[in-house]
C-alpha cells in the first residue's frame, strides 16, 4: 500500500479561495515533501518539512506536519488559475531503515486541484 495518501482525490475551487490538501503516511519519517505536477509534465518540488518542524511557509504555501497523527497538510492561499495541477506528498523512510529502502521516496496518489478563473 502507498506510504502517503492524499485527501481529497480532487478539489475544485474558484480563484481567490484557499485550497487545502491532506496527506497521511504510515511509518516514521525524516521529512515529508510536497510536489506539484502540471498536466503532462514532470514533478516540481515545492516544500520540504522536517520531522522536528510543525509548520513551514513558502510564499502562498503553508505546510503543517503532525507526526503524532502521521499527517500533513498543504494550504495554498489566494489560489490562482495557474495553481491548477496535481499535488503529491512524498516521504523517505527514516535514515536507520537501512538496506535498500534508504533514500527512496514513496509518493501518494495525489490531489487534482482545479482553480476556476
Amino acid at each position, binding site marked *: 500500500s502507498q506510504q502517503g495518501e492524499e485527501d481529497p482525490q480532487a478539489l475544485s475551487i474558484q480563484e481567490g479561495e484557499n485550497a487545502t490538501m491532506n496527506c497521511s503516511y504510515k511509518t516514521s519519517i525524516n521529512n515529508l*515533501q510536497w510536489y506539484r505536477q502540471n498536466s503532462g*509534465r514532470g*514533478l516540481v518540488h515545492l516544500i520540504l518539512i522536517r520531522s522536528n518542524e510543525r509548520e513551514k511557509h513558502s510564499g502562498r504555501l503553508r505546510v503543517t506536519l503532525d507526526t503524532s497523527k502521521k499527517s500533513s497538510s498543504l494550504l495554498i492561499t489566494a489560489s490562482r488559475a495557474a495553481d491548477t495541477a496535481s499535488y503529491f506528498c*512524498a516521504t523517505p523512510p527514516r535514515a536507520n531503515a537501512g538496506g535498500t529502502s534508504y533514500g527512496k*521516496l514513496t509518493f*501518494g496518489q495525489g490531489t487534482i486541484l482545479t482553480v476556476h478563473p
Partner: protein
Amino acid sequence: SQTIHQWPATLVQPVGSPLSLECTVEGTSNPNLYWYRQAAGRGLQLLFYSVGIGQISSEVPQNLSASRPQDRQFILSSKKLLLSDSGFYLCAWSVFKDQPQHFGDGTRLSIL
C-alpha cells in the same frame, strides 16, 4: 545550475519491440538517479534507482532494466515491450538520499 534532460518526449512502439529511454543530468556530480512510471496521471511507482555508476537497484520485477554507464546518464531499457509497459516514464535526480528530487519532463510511451 543543474538541469535534467529526458528524451524522447513521446514514443509509440509495437508490442515486442525494444526500448531505450535516456536521461542525463548536468551541473552536478554523483547524483542519485531514479526511474519512475506513472499510470493515468496518478501516483508514481519507483522502478529503479542508482547511487553510482554501475549500481542499480530494482524495485519492481518486470521486463525492464536500467543502466548507468556514466555518472550523469541513466538509461531505461527493455528487450521486448509488453502492452502493460505503456505509461508516463519520469527520470529524477537528487543530491542526497532523502533530499528533494528533481524531475525531467517525462516520456509518454504508448504500446500498440
